[in-house]
């Protein structure tokens, strides 16, 4: 027996040693990531000037993929800024699927970071209330004059968190817009005219099912964005009661506003008849084999659509971007995407709280807050600076067919100003948009088209109900995405969902309403 134990000990030793060797490999990566900030705070902020004699490196986290020409663009930007800001830019592109995890981890761990993208749908409210971000009023006043000039004051006012500016709103549109992403070539092959109503869209889904049995007729957004699910997507267009989701739970409509009356409603107590009919319609589509059976097993619906075997899918903005179109055409040059929406373009058709949904923030841990702000301001001092970071090199990666538009040449650069610099003054419209999309884009860019929400300027402070929100999120994940995509029997599943979640939702609703009442009383 002793011999055996010795043998086992030896085996254990081998395991230990081999694990430590493996750890050696992976340990190195961790070390690189956590190398302590070399740069030290040298900025002697004397009144309004910063000592820029020493070069600093700004670490920037934004979502998306690094375009091929990005390094060249950054080198050019650094050269242009040499005498005014004197910074190097270390830009990290975070994959969309990891965004929320990466942002929270970066903030949680206190990793070196000077500029970071965040958004209410990405947990920004919690990050603000946890105290991760620097309030920007002073920095903007001292170093951000051009930012204040290029972003209208109303936009800052509407996008404060607890009365303070914690992020520069990135946006041009006054309300989130969405659209169905449709394969134009298939629609035409089916002999269908341009789609102008949801009924016509549904007709196409069924026609695809019949004529193209190998294609996926309809692939709505799965768990990553519940507001673009099969049922809820329809609220973007057909929303007579002006239903808007609250800020309590990401993209869920369980707590919602209605008719701009400053009240928080609760789907468990008052199921909206439109929403329920949309849910029942989704169930029908699922049962009829229109909605992709395995939609919940799809990792990323945009990637799936670009492969060319999805007839109709959804997206969260207006028009087809060049990169998506190019990706599809690389599968087969005859394939083509178009977007379909059913927006009314009459002024006053929709309300808006003028909240933007993308922000760029400066974390508290940054040692280069002044320089970070100076860099963001530098972008906005000159259209040429903005164009460089937004579109690359003129004549090489993009062209300007006319004064206000742009079109990309090739695929070396992609469109992502919404991740760090987007603003209404410097924005250009893509010349790839068709006339209809352009009209929608312009309609959504003009604030005067929207009825201001009663809750303009209000932000929900989630701190008191963190536990309840955590509970709700874990319950919601089990039921909600199934119900709103028609994957399960809606009534049965809704009852289960309600039984489990209605108590916590009620608590959150009460807290939410109390905060609104206080806000409205002021």
């Amino acid at each position, binding site marked *: *027996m002793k011999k055996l134990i010795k043998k086992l000990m030896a085996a254990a030793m081998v395991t230990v040693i081999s694990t430590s060797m493996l750890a050696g490999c992976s340990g190195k990566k961790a070390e690189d990531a956590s190398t302590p900030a070399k740069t030290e705070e040298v900025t002697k902020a004397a009144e309004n000037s910063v000592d820029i004699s020493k070069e600093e490196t700004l670490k920037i986290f934004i979502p998306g993929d690094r375009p091929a020409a990005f390094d060249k663009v950054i080198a050019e930007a650094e050269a242009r800024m040499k005498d005014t800001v004197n910074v190097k830019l270390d830009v990290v592109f975070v994959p969309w699927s990891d965004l929320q995890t990466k942002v929270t981890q970066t903030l949680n761990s206190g990793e070196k970071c000077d500029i970071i993208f965040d958004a209410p749908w990405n947990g920004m409210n919690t990050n603000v209330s946890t105290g991760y971000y620097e309030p920007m009023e002073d920095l903007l006043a001292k170093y951000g004059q051009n930012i204040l000039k290029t972003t209208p004051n109303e936009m800052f006012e509407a996008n404060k968190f607890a009365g303070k500016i914690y992020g520069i709103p990135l946006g041009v549109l006054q309300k989130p817009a969405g659209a169905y992403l449709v394969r134009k070539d298939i629609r035409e092959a089916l002999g269908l005219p341009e789609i102008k109503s949801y009924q016509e869209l549904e007709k196409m889904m069924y026609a695809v099912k019949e004529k193209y049995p190998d294609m996926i007729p309809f692939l709505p957004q799965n768990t990553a964005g519940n507001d673009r699910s099969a049922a809820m997507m329809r609220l973007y267009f057909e929303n007579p009661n002006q239903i808007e989701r609250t800020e309590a739970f990401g993209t869920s409509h369980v707590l919602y506003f209605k008719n701009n009356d400053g009240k928080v409603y609760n789907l468990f107590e008052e199921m909206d008849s439109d929403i329920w009919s949309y849910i029942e319609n989704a169930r029908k589509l699922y049962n009829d084999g229109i909605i992709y*059976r395995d939609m919940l097993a799809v990792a990323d619906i945009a990637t799936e659509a670009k492969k060319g075997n999805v007839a109709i899918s959804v997206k969260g903005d207006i028009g087809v971007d060049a990169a998506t179109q190019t990706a599809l055409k690389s599968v087969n040059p005859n394939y083509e995407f178009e977007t379909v929406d059913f927006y009314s373009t009459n002024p006053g058709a929709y309300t808006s709280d003028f909240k933007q949904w993308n922000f760029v923030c400066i974390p508290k841990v940054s040692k280069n807050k002044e320089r970070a702000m100076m860099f963001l301001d530098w972008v906005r001092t000159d259209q040429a600076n903005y164009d460089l970071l937004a579109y690359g090199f003129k004549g090489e990666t993009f062209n300007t067919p006319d004064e206000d538009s742009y079109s990309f040449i090739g695929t070396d650069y992609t469109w992502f100003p919404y991740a760090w610099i987007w603003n209404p003054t410097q924005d250009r419209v893509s010349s790839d948009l068709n006339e209809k999309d352009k009209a929608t884009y312009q309609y959504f860019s003009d604030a005067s088209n929207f009825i201001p929400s009663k809750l303009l300027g209000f932000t929900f402070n989630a701190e008191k109900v963190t536990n309840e*929100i955590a509970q709700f999120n874990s319950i919601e*994940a089990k039921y909600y995405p199934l119900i709103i995509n028609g994957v399960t029997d809606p009534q049965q599943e809704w009852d289960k969902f309600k039984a489990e979640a209605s108590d916590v939702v009620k608590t959150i609703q009460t807290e939410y309403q109390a905060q609104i009442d206080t806000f409205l009383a002021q």
Partner: protein
Amino acid sequence: MVNFRGIIGFFSGIKVDIKKNPYLYALGIPGFLFFAFFSYLPMFGHVLAFKKYRVSDGIWGSEWVGLDNFKFFFSGHDWINVTRNTLLLNTLFLFMTTVIAIAIAVFLNEIRSEVFKKLAQSVIFLPYFISWMVISLMVFALLNFDAGIINRTLVSLGMDKVEWYQDASKWPAIMSIVYVWKFAGYNSIIYLAAITGMPQEVYESAKVDGATRFQMIIRITLPMLAPTVITLVLLGIGRIFFGDFGMFYGIIGDNPALYSTTDVIDTFAYRSLRQLGNFSMSSAIVLYQSMMGLVTIGLFNFIVKKINKDYSLF
């Protein structure tokens, strides 16, 4: 009364042993350091479970909130479900992998052709090196509704398609098969090493007494393999409250239709952290996991000790 003499005796015993086997101990230093830094040191992080953690305040400076962080986990219904899933699936994995790995090891040992034996070993070992993400694509290719290999086969046999990704009841079996496929080969190598090391005299004398090969397997190989099996199983039980995150998140992803049988503590904690970015709440869940793991291994070690002292871990 503390037994000082006993403690002193223990340490002087180690000292003598180090002097006797200096090289063996030297070999262990990297591993020792690894566990010290990556397993023992981070244990202080468990204190986060009782605090409202903010980076700006640091680990020690953050506000103490007692058991507040445990509330969200234990006040819902999910903790029972995820704990049950974690336990059940891991038990299933452990049992099936062990049984099949032993069988593979015994069969490999009986193969007389060296070339075929080496080849078979390598092929069985191969799945261990395939990452979960790749395996998840393979599983999807097999099981998807419209174009999956299995559904197509069913259709060609005149049967109805199965909605694999919507039916939670089938997944404990699917996950077990995948797990066994990936790990049984790897584990069998360990058992095979133990079998190869067994004294040949015992087999020779059994042969002289007229034992068949089957009898030798049942009466000699398996009983002599028992200590190795028990050690490996005990080590497995120590991690029975830890779901293989890469596996579950890779294969299941965010598919609510399958949560009821496949949501384990790790994926649950990950989803909560991702949605809330709350380190303290996640730490609370991990602490619960670790505590339960400690209790189980203590319990099983106690049971093993009762049966046969030599087989226990500590």
